[in-house]
């Protein structure tokens, strides 16, 4: 009985010691690989260029994205556009556009404009000759204002009805980014 007591006490002590690794050192910070902090759309026509940017450095944190628009869009003009996705929470920033390009058949970017503000069409294709949406042209209409919604879908069904022409309704997949920019055409 006494032996048993000793053994159990020893065991108890061992456990307390083994479990109490008092680590005052901070564990490594997790590098957020899946995070997109920044969506940047650049539209150019000659020397006229417009940059629409949405940046949210705290990711899923409470701070809302900061949306900035630099430059003015002109009426009845054709812009060549590109979109960039970045993770700026890490240093140096992760270029997510390159990741999308590497698996372009699994991604598509959709552009929704308030009606009357013109049309956006795809100018790039993936290995299956389906659009990706990293490169676009934007043909503006008359003077007006509204919104542009840019959506990055992962694993969309690109062959579903209307998806290749930019209609998001039947695209499916999951949304990796969805940002809304105010658009004013002068």
């Amino acid at each position, binding site marked *: 009985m006494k032996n*048993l007591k000793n053994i*159990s006490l020893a*065991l*108890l002590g061992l*456990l*307390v010691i083994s*479990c109490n690794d008092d*680590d005052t050192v*901070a*564990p*490594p*910070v*997790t*590098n*957020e*690989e*899946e995070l*997109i*902090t*920044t*969506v940047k759309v650049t539209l150019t026509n000659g020397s006229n260029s417009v940059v629409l940017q*949405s940046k*949210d*450095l*705290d*990711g*899923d*944190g*409470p*701070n*809302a*994205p900061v949306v900035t628009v630099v430059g003015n869009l002109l009426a009845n003009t054709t812009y060549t556009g590109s979109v960039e996705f970045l993770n700026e*929470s890490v240093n140096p920033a992760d270029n*997510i556009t390159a*990741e999308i390009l*590497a*698996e372009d058949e*699994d*991604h598509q970017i959709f552009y*929704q*404009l*308030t*009606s009357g503000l013109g049309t956006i069409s795809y100018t790039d294709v993936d290995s299956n000759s389906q659009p990706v949406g990293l490169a676009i042209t934007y043909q503006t209409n008359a003077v007006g204002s509204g*919104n542009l*919604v840019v*959506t990055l*879908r*992962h*694993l969309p069904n690109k062959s579903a009805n209307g998806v290749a022409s930019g209609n*998001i*309704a039947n695209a*499916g*997949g*999951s*949304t*990796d*980014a*969805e*940002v*809304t920019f105010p658009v004013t055409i002068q």
Partner: protein
Amino acid sequence: MRFIFSFLFGLVTLFAYSQFQVSGKVVNTFNEPMENIHVHTHGKTTSTDVNGNYTIYNLKEGNHVIEFSFSGYLPYKQKYFLKSNLIINAVMIINETQIEEVAIQSKNSNVTKSQKENVISKSTIERYGSQNLGDVLKEIAGVSALKTGNSIVKPIINGLHSNRVVTLNQGIRIEDQQWGIEHAPNIDINSIQKIKVIKGASALQYGGDAIGGVVLLEPNLIRVDTLIGKTMLSLNSNGRGGSAATSLFRAKEKGLNWNFNASLKYFGDRETRNYVLSNSGNREQNFSGGLSYQLAKHNLSTYYSLYNSQVGILKASHIGNTNDLYNAIVNFQPAVIEDFTYNLAHPKQEATHHFLKVQDHISLTDFSSLEVVYSFQWNNRKEFDVRRNSQNTNAALDLDLKTHIFKVDFQTQKGKFELKNGVNLFLQNNEANPFTGVRPLIPTFSKNEIGFYGVSNYNFNESLVFELGGRLDFSTIEASKYYLKSRWNERNYNEAFSAFIQSEVGNQYFTKPKFNYVNFSGNIGFKKTFHHDYVWYFNVNLASRNPNVSELFSDGLHHSNGQIELGDLRIQQEKSFKIASTVTKSWQQTGFEIHPYLNFINDFIFLKPIGFETTIRGAFPVWSFQQTNAVLSGIDIAFNAVVFKKGSYNLGTAYVNGWDTSNQKHLIDVPPLKIMNGFKWHEKNWYNFKAEVKNEWVFTQNQFPNYNFSANIIQNNQLVAVEIPISEAPKGYNLWHFYSELQFETSKKTNLVIAFSIDNLTNEAYRDYLNRQRFFVDEMGRNFQLQIKFNY
């Protein structure tokens, strides 16, 4: 005159011939009375009562044979000559080939005296051999299943689940991240011999925090010299897979006992009536083994089990934002339907659970014993998400949970007084892998607890037992967690918790939150046995549960339901006060059980929507853990009756109402009214043929809180504000199930059982309120199952 004389003579002889009776008592080899033993003599039959007694009346003088029989025991026959009333006692001996079923009958070792324990037998567990613990528990009225798809099933007891339900394997609580609604108990159903469910926290020796209830998984307790084996194969049409399990069991009265059990499960995609549930397959590889050595005063034993599972998560349930969620709900059709495959793609879960137990049971005197137990559990959980880069196959969540439990229990009996007390030491460490590339859902933490309990029973007389118990727990939890500064400020943590901040790293604080808790739980009740086998249990208990890690620390986006879930460091313990009563009656022909209860929970912890946050992925509703006062009230009813000689009917029904008294709202995820009707047919002479038809009727849950919210969705190229209907419960449903089996005696000691069953006979397409994937897909369609079981 002659006529009258002969008539009188006839009457006298009739009287003379019919006045004898045979009675007696039937016990097992432990000298415990055996109930429901079939007694047959000279064309008359009866069964023994609760005390093992039987009487057969109106037997004629002469030579007769009496036979006692019971499933799992060797039939006992005796010849006798009757010329006066006779007493014939019998001792039933276990039939070794069917020994496992007997385990249920052999010993009455109730954990709590004042609360009814619901028991599930080995034969029922075996039917669910290719399913999960959560599925078989639904056999008990008042227990429902909280599901994520088909393979992740958690029990809900009287409306409560997750950390409010404690599952114990051989007396040790299973520590496997039960805070998560998508985390099923990490246990192989094929390794379980017997399940007991206690609805409430009255089993104080196992903890004072089981506000919902306790599930006890128990081992085989046979101590008769025997060697038995079993190999079972289950094949299922839905999922095109099945399971195989084999076990060997060696028991002796003295000396070395051993057993082992191994099982495999392999399933591909399940199917509903209309489509394939893409990526719903699962696998399991399990092993368990035990050794025990019986000495004069000591019983030394050790047990190890390994549970290994891989579960696919429905592809269609992976969504990115509220827009995706809205589309999924209104389309009523999953976004991803692919051809059937056995492959498991991302998202998926992988869990490994090691369980080790070493124990010494010491018999101090004939009436007292001491049990010293050490156990170690190591749980690893990996959750794989759909990543942008498909080459990246790293887990998104990787948690390593290690738990040491050390306990000493002392039990003694003095006359009418019984006492159990003990001490429990619990040391736990969770390591959240920081290299997954995704912020861990819950942090690295360590948790230490020490608990003391005492429970006493007083047997006033044979029919009244009084129970009183108390428990005191001291616990401490310390986490290492990074908070985004923006989140720390939004939560207003700076005032009360700035001392937790250790350092600043970029836009984050490194913190070490630490909390101490002291909890008292108590239990008082009685059990009263009346005439005619009426038993009345009455129990009042007080329990409290510490906030779990997710309630304190969770902080981020939940991908499967498109919501941001936030813990709160201010959350305190929740306290439950439960009044429960059970009335049971078991006649020979009919029986019933009625269990009404009232559970008042102060500071009930729940998730509540508190607003919106916009991220680069769009706007998300934010749900925060909050506390309120709640009342759960309900009733469970079970009834069974022998309709005719070979047919019996049974009914199980449960109703529970969950009410948030502070907010005057219903509680979320409360099971709807359910009625189970079953009819069983048993034909012993035809290869022990058994057949069962079951009807499962689940009503529409109309009592839910309205948490619908409005969000801007892209429709026809425009952002349109719509209501996201997440609150409404799906329509009720009515399912039919069928089960049948035949048993062939292959030799004197071996038999083969072949069972065929059909679940969801009419291939109903339906959705269940308690399935987290109800927004995306229907429930599984019809399933044919063939089971081949060889006992040797």
